[in-house]
């Protein structure tokens, strides 16, 4: 296999479709945000069209790649390329989360304490009624940012979710081993379990958000605690959704008989992504919920 030449694809219109999709999505969103902020929901047509174009592009592009792959056009070098690309993509995702973790640490270690007195003049002249604490249940200016009544307890649902996500990392690994040993039955089973665990996690997460909004008055706009809480867990939840979708597609492909013990990059990529999502969750559990 590795004797073969590196596969160079024909010219392709998928990238351009992708660009048009991306542009339609963000232009539509920006337009709605700027011109129809009072009724966002009613003006998202362009955004949805853009997302549909993107979905179409993904199906088409990935479909082509899958066909090429199953058609034996890729040699080992192409496989390595894909692996590297996926690794660096995950690294970029790590850095994206790093920005938000950075904001969290900055708020906890610096800005909130400063306002609360670690910077005496700022406290004395601007925020003399504010005292620093974390979780931040009393915002510096509650008239602008209503304070939350409480926060999510770490050792309830979040702990359960931790267990769920960690187990799913294990099950996806078991599935991977089954794939390498060419045990298709076990592969299907464990992959299915993983997908179920993933969506269960999301269900719990949704429930937790519902509780935060309705009972705790903990919202996106309730000060820096709500801000960091929802932005971090929200982006994580989005990534879990993407990961679970990827795994679902892998499941479907397994059912169609795709992948071989020595040739299953897409499966591996999805499982790497899943492990990454898992590790981010550990960080969240420790720094957002627990400490």
């Amino acid at each position, binding site marked *: 296999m590795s004797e073969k030449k590196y596969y160079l694809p024909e010219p392709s219109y998928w990238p351009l479709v992708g660009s048009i999709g991306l542009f339609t999505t963000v232009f539509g969103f920006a337009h709605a945000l700027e011109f129809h902020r009072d009724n966002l929901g009613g003006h998202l047509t362009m955004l949805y069209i853009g997302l549909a174009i993107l979905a179409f592009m993904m199906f088409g592009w990935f479909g082509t790649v899958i066909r090429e792959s199953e058609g034996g056009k890729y040699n080992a070098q192409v496989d390595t390329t894909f692996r590297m690309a996926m690794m660096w993509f995950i690294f970029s995702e790590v850095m994206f989360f790093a920005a938000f973790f950075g904001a969290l640490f900055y708020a906890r270690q610096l800005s909130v304490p*400063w*306002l609360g007195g670690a*910077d005496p*003049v*700022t406290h004395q*002249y*601007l*925020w003399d009624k504010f005292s620093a604490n974390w979780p931040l249940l009393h915002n*510096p200016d509650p008239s602008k940012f209503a304070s939350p009544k409480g926060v999510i307890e770490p050792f309830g649902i979040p702990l359960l979710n931790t267990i769920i996500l960690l187990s799913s990392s294990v099950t996806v690994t078991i599935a991977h081993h089954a794939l390498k040993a060419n045990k298709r039955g076990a592969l299907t089973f464990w992959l299915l379990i993983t997908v179920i665990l993933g969506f269960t996690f999301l269900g719990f997460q949704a429930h937790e958000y519902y509780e935060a909004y309705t009972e705790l008055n903990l919202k996106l706009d309730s000060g820096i605690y709500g801000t960091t809480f929802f932005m971090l867990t929200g982006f994580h939840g989005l990534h879990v959704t993407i990961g679970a979708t990827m795994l679902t597609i892998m499941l479907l492909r397994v059912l169609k008989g795709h992948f071989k013990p020595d040739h299953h990059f897409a499966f591996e990529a999805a499982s790497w992504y899943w492990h990454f999502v898992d590790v981010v969750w550990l960080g969240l559990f420790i720094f957002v919920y627990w400490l």
Partner: protein
Amino acid sequence: MSASKTMRSLIGLLGTVLTFAPTVAMADYGLNMHKGVTKISHEIYDLHMLVLWIVTIVGILVFGVMIYSIINHRKSKGVTPATFHESTTVEVIWTVIPFVILVAIAVPATKTLLQMSDMSHPDLNIKVTGWQWKWEYDYLDNGVHFFSNLAKSSLDAGAEQVGDAKDVDNPAIHYLRNVDHPLVVPVHKKVRLLITGADVIHSWWVPDLGVKHDAIPGHINESWFRADKVGIYRGQCAELCGKGHGFMPIVVKVVSESDYKSWVAQQKKAEAAASADVNKTFTKAELMAKGKKVYDTICAACHQVNGKGLPGVFPALAGSKTVKGPKEEHIHTVVDGRPGTAMQAFGKQLNPVDIASVITYERNSFGNNDGDIVQPSDVVAFEKNQKSK
């Protein structure tokens, strides 16, 4: 060969730039950093010169070698290229030497930086707040408080007149550099500044005092200076803060201790008089005259002197609904501003007399002919009414 001729002129040019620029910078042509009038500004100046000299010397050495090589090691001179291409020894040497130089720079720099952040034992504390686009000064020790705007005369002094400006009193020489109310401080006293921003980030900078600090909304930065010489020192906002960023100068008057005392007393008197005025009833002419002054210094920045605004950015007042509408709404807009727009809540910045007169002015200028007038007492009543709500 023409290449060599052109090369030589390149060398000439660079040589000129390199050898002369720093030397010229020494001279007092207004090319170099100001020495300033505080110990800190002197130290900063010395650091600046130290590093400038170091890089000049390093530059002469490095460029000298390059120029020598460019002149002599060229193919047209028939040289054959050498073949050496590495040497760990020289790499180590030219790693270590810059490092040592840097340490030599870091030592005095650290000393100066530590002094700059020593806020202990101030003689006078002033809270400085940056606004779009003016400065607010709050003397924490004696209660003197005022806003400082770009002086109208300084803006009007068309830059064209500069040519005829013979004496320093000609306003043209201070085009964009004068304010209506300068900050006044005593000489030889440690003045501590508590700097903050009201809307966006500004930066309070007076080069001669060696102070530049950002004014961050919601946070206070401390800074200090002790001026060694009586005089007037100018600076301006040094952080992009919107369209008026180039038009928010700073003027600091350093005066003797006794002048400072009498200035404070005078300020107190003026304030007392102003609060007495609140209960006075003014004639329309008085209000219009006062109003025009306030309008031109404050409102005209956005709404323009002719009241026409900037289409798409700042609304016109000529024919505006608010201005032609009921008085209450007009007062409300000026006092409380329009959140989410550049219209600020001027209730915090202007006294009722100023507000009443500027509203009167707006209602009777730019073709608006409401005919009515607003008295300070109307504004006071509005504010009271609002509080009780």
